[in-house]
């Protein structure tokens, strides 16, 4: 549907180009990046879908060992995201760094194949996969911002996240198809996943344009200059807001468990909860991004938090049955659609262009670290005070996050706003 825009000579469309007929159009580069993400997500969600079965049934790992593999090296991966961001800014090759990230994840799929039954080797493959994801996220988001006029950032991120979501949605289905063809042999899923991922890397190489911009003065950026980002008030505020967003998020697993518990639903329906959320997310990501461009990214982000609080409240409230399930899944999808890409669109214009990748990586890191902390806290709260109290905590955290984010980011939410004064 965006084919006409691919062949557009200028990757970055000027504001004047977006006539009424071009309403849904994004730059060719954003479309190319979205395609890479979509293909890559098909590949990675294929593996994600079969990994529990592969580890527990195929390799007979106990859940404790599965947990160890699952939680492996998350912290290291988060740090690698920062390294990737800084590296991309320093060498001015965001495409190359993103490409290394995509490539590493592709190779990791073959790592699963080579690992056989060795838990350590599988842990290594999981780490490589996540390291690749850590490396590529910030350079990719920076490329999206550099390929898009500031006024259309919300839509660009929305389209990208929708394409990303489509890939995640069909990945598990592809895995099922491969298993059917291969007579339930897991290694066929790893090989197919590698082939799909390799195709994604090729699309990146062939169709994504780098934005190198002017070479930074006197060689390269120093870590000290990168640290100087923290002196920009807008960047600091975006980081704090991202951390609050992470703290207010209790995690999909908890939301679905609460829902299932409330509804006492048959186990057969349980996996469909995640499907429902991702469907609502991928359908809403683009409209939410476009809405953010029109009414402002801050109101849409705050609306996203609002939807999240409604999710928690509904899990506490009197409404039950299918209305509850549908409302929770739609609201949860709205929350993701209104905050995931929009937060990047909100934060990106606050960063100086030469340090944008590092800056976006900082924001993503804050969110990820806070999320890990909040899920640990929520799990403990549930354990010690029960699910109702834990839910009340989540509502309170969401409320604090809304108020604090509104205060922190008010006035710098306009799409045209640029870097705030350095202090």
């Amino acid at each position, binding site marked *: 549907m965006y084919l006409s825009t691919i062949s557009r*000579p200028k990757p970055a469309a000027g504001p004047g180009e977006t006539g009424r007929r071009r309403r849904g159009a994004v730059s060719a580069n954003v479309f190319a990046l979205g395609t890479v993400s979509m293909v890559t997500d098909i590949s990675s969600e294929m593996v994600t879908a079969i990994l529990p079965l592969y580890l*527990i*049934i195929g390799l007979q790992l106990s859940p404790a060992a599965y947990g160890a593999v699952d939680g492996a090296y998350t912290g290291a991966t988060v740090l690698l995201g920062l390294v990737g961001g800084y590296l991309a800014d320093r060498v001015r090759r965001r495409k190359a760094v993103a490409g290394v990230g995509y490539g590493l994840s592709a190779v990791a799929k073959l790592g699963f194949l080579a690992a056989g039954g060795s838990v350590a080797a599988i842990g290594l493959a999981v780490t490589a996969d996540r390291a690749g994801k850590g490396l590529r996220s910030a350079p990719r988001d920076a490329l999206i911002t550099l390929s898009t006029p500031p006024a259309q950032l919300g839509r660009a991120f929305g389209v990208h996240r929708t394409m990303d979501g489509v890939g995640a949605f069909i990945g598990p289905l592809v895995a099922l198809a491969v298993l059917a063809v*291969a007579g*339930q042999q897991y290694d066929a899923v790893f090989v197919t996943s590698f082939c799909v991922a390799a195709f994604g890397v090729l699309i990146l190489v*062939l169709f994504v344009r780098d934005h190198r911009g002017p070479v930074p003065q006197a060689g390269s950026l120093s870590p000290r200059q990168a640290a100087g980002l923290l002196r920009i008030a807008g960047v600091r505020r975006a980081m704090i807001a991202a951390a609050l967003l992470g703290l207010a998020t209790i995690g*999909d697993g908890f939301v679905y*468990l609460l829902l299932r518990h409330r509804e006492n639903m048959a186990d057969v329906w349980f996996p469909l909860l995640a499907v429902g959320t991702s469907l609502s997310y991928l359908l809403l990501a683009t409209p939410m991004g476009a809405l953010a461009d029109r009414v402002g990214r801050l109101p849409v982000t705050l609306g996203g938090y609002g939807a999240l609080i409604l999710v928690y409240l509904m899990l506490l409230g009197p409404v039950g049955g299918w209305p509850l399930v549908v409302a929770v899944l739609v609201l949860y999808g709205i929350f993701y659609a209104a905050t995931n890409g929009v937060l990047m669109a909100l934060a990106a214009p606050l960063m100086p262009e030469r340090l944008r990748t590092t800056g976006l990586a900082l924001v993503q890191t804050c969110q990820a670290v806070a999320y890990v902390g909040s899920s640990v806290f929520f799990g403990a709260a549930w354990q010690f005070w029960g699910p109702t109290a834990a839910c009340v905590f989540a509502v309170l955290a969401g409320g604090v996050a809304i108020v604090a984010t509104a205060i922190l980011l008010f006035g710098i939410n306009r799409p045209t706003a640029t870097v705030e004064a350095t202090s």
Partner: protein
Amino acid sequence: MSGPSGLSLRARGVIAGSAAALLAVVAVGYAVSARPGPSAPTGSSVVADATARDGGPRIQVLSNGVLSSVSLQDPGGPRNLTSQRCDRAFAAGDTIGCLRPVNPLGATRLVVLDRALRERRSIPLTGFPNRLRVSASGRMVAWTLFIDGHSYSSSGGGFSTRAGILDTRTGTLTESVEGFAATVNGRPYQAADMNVWGVTFADDDNRFYATMSSGGHRYLIEGDFAARTFKTVTDGVECPSLSPDGTRIAFKAAVGGDPARGWRLSVLDLATRATVALAESRSVDDQAIWLNEHTVAYGLQRSDGTNDVWAVPADGTGGPRRLVSGANSPSVDDPGL
């Protein structure tokens, strides 16, 4: 127009198209060649009765996922293979239970077979097979499934368990024991973080024991299937297995109360509450079975992923011995024989 790589759009399209075709051929070719041949033995060469009694009591095991049996007296001897594939299996009385994963998204099937391996009942379930028990009479079947917290990005290994029970005589199906009225330390109890696993039945086909975790405790519970209730008996007991005489429970106890440090196989005397750690010092992550009143058996995984069935005296003396190589999910027909 030239693109990022200096090639025209048409050239890039041709490269991408050819690469896609090539990669598709590789992927499909691999998948088709990976399809396993008819390796599982079928047909008349197979001894269909996994628990043929001509040579005395037998141990039913899974050999590489295939339902099979060996003589209890000569467990290293010839192995009878069947055409049934299971991930967990258990035989008792006239019933063989078999849990089979159906697809990687957590669909699983419980198949209840008779001695001649005819299917008596098949129940679709959700989750990954973990434990399976049949009561001594063959009437009751209980299973435990892991339900994935979905997606390996949600860290912390957020697995939850569900234990269900089927009464094969009445057809009564309980998908989750969590729905029973719970009493913890004498008080009615409700919690959302409740997980139940590892059911074991008493001789009356109604009372059962299991593990219930909540609020950081791993309680031994005693349940009443007909009354749909359970109450806690003691703490720190996982995967109980009731002895044939109903007086003792073999279980795994988390080392130092921390499952991450592994489990120690132990036996609890229900009357005196005395606990004895068995002579197996390796971490055992299984629900043990009783070979007889004096010996328990369990599956243990080697570092290369192969499983063996081991046995150890139930009184803490002696040492472990390997019972059946390359096998797991053991059950014995008639403990006490």
